[in-house]
């Protein structure tokens, strides 16, 4: 039999059991949808991660913050503004800049949001994050003292569409609590928005899209403290020897009460934990495909029993064993292919749905960290993902279809013809 005839014969056979085929295909669809949603989001996530890291980190920077945890960490230890100078004076350190952070509240349309205010040195900060500490609107006042706010892009446009929540020139009031002995003091400050920053994404450490930036002096004045949350040190180069040397120097100086981390290491850590999650989810998706495979096997065995006579007829007309094998495999292959193609489309769609939900949660939830993992991540359907999905769907179908196909091929013509 010619291959064209084989395919049309198989198609005809599939057509006569439409519903059963649809249900079997559905099994494959579910498996492939899950896999594609996962892979395309994973790809998008990785692309976004790369982009953000390239923009948001200098490879020659180190982050110094106080050590946390229970072993060897002194809870009373703090970093102070003056430490900036100390660290800046170390060998191979070109520049050190302080980052102050405090959680405050702003009034939302229906509820209050908690966000972070960052106190930084605008000029130095710009030097470390030249691509992301950039105004989209208004202007950041470098050099000249200011009492205005520089806000992250998501405070300006929470939904990333045209609806503006807060614009340049408008006033924003921030609220925070203070303890004075046993008293609770409610504080607030109203100031004008000077500038809106460009969107940076959730992985870049330089700019928080839902952060408010003020000069460090203003922050210390406002919150009556000399403590800072971290100090960023810019090293003379990004050789690992240099980074190691500076790290050790700082750690030793602060009696091991600080953590010094390099962005490179942070990236690797995020990627590896993401890979673990992805592998875990992929195996779940894989299991659903195995279930689909068993479904295919089941349906092909039923089909084998139903069509035993037909196989006998084909054999009596001189059809060879391998042709019967092909007919069966083509049928399962078609099921696998249909399932894969539909699954790829659906999976990609689900990827978008997930990323939309992620973005949506980002603004609707009080805790800015929650839901941020998908922020700015759109699924990416690369050629290799499409190929993998089709290969996976079709191969699973063929593997599970092999046993019924072999049984069909091995049937003896007379026995098959007598089968009721």
């Amino acid at each position, binding site marked *: 039999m010619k291959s064209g005839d084989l395919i049309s014969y198989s198609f005809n056979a599939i057509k006569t059991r439409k519903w059963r085929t649809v249900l079997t295909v559905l099994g494959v669809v579910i498996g492939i949808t899950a896999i594609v949603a996962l892979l395309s989001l994973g790809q998008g996530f990785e692309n976004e991660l790369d982009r953000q890291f390239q923009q948001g980190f200098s490879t020659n920077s180190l982050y110094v913050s106080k050590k946390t945890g229970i072993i060897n960490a002194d809870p009373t230890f703090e970093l102070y503004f003056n430490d900036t100078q100390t660290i800046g004076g170390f060998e191979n350190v070109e520049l050190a800049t302080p980052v102050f952070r405090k959680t405050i509240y702003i009034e939302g349309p229906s509820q209050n949001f908690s966000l972070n205010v960052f106190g930084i040195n605008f000029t130095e900060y710009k030097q470390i994050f030249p691509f992301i500490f950039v105004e989209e609107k208004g202007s950041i006042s470098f050099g000249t003292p200011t009492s205005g706010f520089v806000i992250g892009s998501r405070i300006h446009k929470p939904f990333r569409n045209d609806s503006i929540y807060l614009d340049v020139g408008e006033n924003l009031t921030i609220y925070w609590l203070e303890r004075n002995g046993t008293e609770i003091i409610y504080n607030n400050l109203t100031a004008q928005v000077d500038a809106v920053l460009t969107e940076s994404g959730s992985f870049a450490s330089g700019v928080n899209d839902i952060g408010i930036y003020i000069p460090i002096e203003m922050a210390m004045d406002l919150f009556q403290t000399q403590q800072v949350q971290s100090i960023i040190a810019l090293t003379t180069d990004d050789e690992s020897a240099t980074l190691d040397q500076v790290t050790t120097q700082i750690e030793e100086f602060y009696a091991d009460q600080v953590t010094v981390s390099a962005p490179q290491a942070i990236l690797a850590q995020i990627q590896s934990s993401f890979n673990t999650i992805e592998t875990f989810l992929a195996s779940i998706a894989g299991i659903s495909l195995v279930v689909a495979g068993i479904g295919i096997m089941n349906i092909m065995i039923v089909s084998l029993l139903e069509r035993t006579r037909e196989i006998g*007829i084909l054999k009596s*007309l001189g*059809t*060879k064993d391998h042709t019967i094998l092909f007919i069966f495999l083509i049928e399962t292959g078609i099921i696998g292919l249909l399932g894969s193609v539909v699954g790829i489309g659906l999976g990609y769609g689900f990827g978008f749905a997930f990323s939309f939900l992620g973005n949506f949660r980002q603004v609707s939830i009080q805790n800015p960290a929650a839901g941020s993992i998908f922020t700015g991540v759109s699924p990416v359907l690369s050629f290799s993902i499409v190929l993998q999905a089709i290969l996976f769907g079709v191969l699973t179908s063929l593997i599970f279809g092999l046993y019924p196909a072999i049984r069909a091929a091995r049937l003896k013509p007379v026995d098959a013809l007598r089968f009721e």
Partner: protein
Amino acid sequence: MDDGIIMSKPLILEAREVKRTYMQGKIPVHALRGVNLEIEKGEFIAIVGPSGSGKSTLLHLIGALDVPTEGELIIGGKNLKEQNRNRLAEMRQQVGFVFQYFNLIPRLTALQNVELAIAILGNMKKNQRRQKAQKILEEVGLGDRLFHRPNELSGGQQQRVAIARALAGDPLFLLMDEPTGNIDTKSRDVLLDLIKNLNRNRHITVIIVTHDSYIAQQADRIVYLVDGVLYDKDPTHSSGRVFESNTNQPKEVNQ
């Protein structure tokens, strides 16, 4: 070969002591008990015999659909038991088989059923194939039933589709198991003419199992199968013994 010299034509089939035993669970059922038969190329042979005597079993063996339990069966110079599955399939391609129970594929139309037989041979373009299938169906009087499925056809019509299918692949052998059981005498005569034509003009070897003595009379030769043994004369006429009792099985007739 048709040069007038009287000599025997080459044997196209040779059966020596062919036995076929089915296992019914643990009990052996001896359907053929040692069949000897020689058929020359181009012969038209009728096999007659009572029900259950092994006619279908023998025809299946000749059609390479089955292999003998014992004995030699040589078809077209090939010993059946020496052929692998692939070769057996190739042998079946040269056989046009009309089954006792039609064996049409239910989901295919009459035309598709006939076309399929040609498609399996893989030697003809789709268009030609369709034309040929249509022509043969017209010859058996089903020109107006091309697009009917088997369940939309009468028994006799189904049988004629089965005949058309058997003829479609230009077989060297035409094996027919009760092909006229369900058709009227007029269609029967048309069919008989068709078969005789193919037999005479294209030297197709025809073996037909039939209860119809009229058809049997048209054959070059009639053989009789009784209880798994083949006779070249009707054993029931020489003695009434054969059908008298089941316990007294007939001995093989020495030739």
